[in-house]
């Protein structure tokens, strides 16, 4: 049993190391989820290789190792999405860094509106091909329209509020 978790841990470690090294050496504003998925596959391959080399070739054990890796990578992706884009986390960090005891909601809102965070999000969406920015105006690309359409449909089906 230890072999399953040990082998899976190797894969997760390989994934995390590659992730940190690549993100530090090649920083980017984009979330790079596809690259993260590729790193997960490399991590999983490492787990399988370690298990085959040091434990057994039992298909059921290999299935379990893959499953543990998939669970760990999906959990990390969930966590990473929040780390990379969370407005709430940005708010919390603002309070931590400014060492403020308290402030008015209006002052916070003015600060946020005056900052470029909203514009930064629009430009990131442009880099992802979802919107087109011309001058100071924004419009949807066909890809953005498709994503918006399917999100609305899925939101209705899953009864999710789409409130933002």
């Amino acid at each position, binding site marked *: *049993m230890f072999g*399953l978790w040990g082998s899976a841990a190797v894969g997760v470690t390989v994934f995390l190391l590659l*992730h940190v090294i690549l*993100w*530090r050496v090649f*920083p980017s*504003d984009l979330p790079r989820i596809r690259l993260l998925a590729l790193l997960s596959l490399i991590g999983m391959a490492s787990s399988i290789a370690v298990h085959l080399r040091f434990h057994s070739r*039992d*298909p*059921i054990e290999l*299935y379990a190792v*893959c*499953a*543990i890796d*998939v*669970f760990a990578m999906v*959990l990390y*992706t*969930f966590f990473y*999405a929040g*780390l*990379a*884009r969370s*407005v*709430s*986390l*940005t*708010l*919390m*960090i603002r*309070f*931590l860094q400014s060492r403020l*005891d*308290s*402030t008015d*909601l*209006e002052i916070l*809102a003015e600060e*946020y*509106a005056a900052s470029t965070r*909203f*514009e*930064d*999000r*629009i430009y*990131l*969406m442009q880099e992802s091909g979802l919107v087109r920015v011309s001058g100071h*105006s*924004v*419009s949807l690309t066909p890809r*953005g329209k498709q*994503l*918006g*359409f399917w*999100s609305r449909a899925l939101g209705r089906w*899953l009864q*999710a509020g*789409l*409130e*933002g």
Partner: protein
Amino acid sequence: MLAVMTSIVIASLAAAIVLLLVIGIHLAYLAISRSARVGGAPMTFLTLAGVGVAVLWVGLEWLMMSGWIEANSGPGLSVGAVCFYLAATIVYVEIRSLLSRGYSLRILIDLMTHGKELPIEDLKSSYGDGLGVVGILAKRLETLKSLGIIHVNGKKVGPLTRQGHLLAGLGLSLRRLLKLETVG
């Protein structure tokens, strides 16, 4: 070998069936209790997902005893099926979270609703069907308050709680480690 592969397929199918049942019950609960719909009743789903783990584990034990899957497969089959099931529940939660609170998705919906090109300032002020920036912040702060991360008293916001300090510090360190600069 065929028996082993069949066992893996059956265990995975069992995980998929339990997942669909859990999601189905969650959606039925949301449909019935409309007041819970906006938040998506996360605690209800977590409870259902936990029950799903138990049902799946017991179900796999029963399948082993009935001879549907290899009896001498050890805990590997159950561990594997449960991990895939848990991964899929996380995906469901993430999709729901993105749909209900996704910042970029909401911008897309706002643009679709207007049906034309919009100046960035107008998009900002009409974000979230008219909620605007104040609305985004107020919503996020309400959630942070309910999670015990920050003190909110009427229009006064802050300070962070002790838990909030720890989480903010961890988040800041990780953003610096991964050089994530242009964020939410």
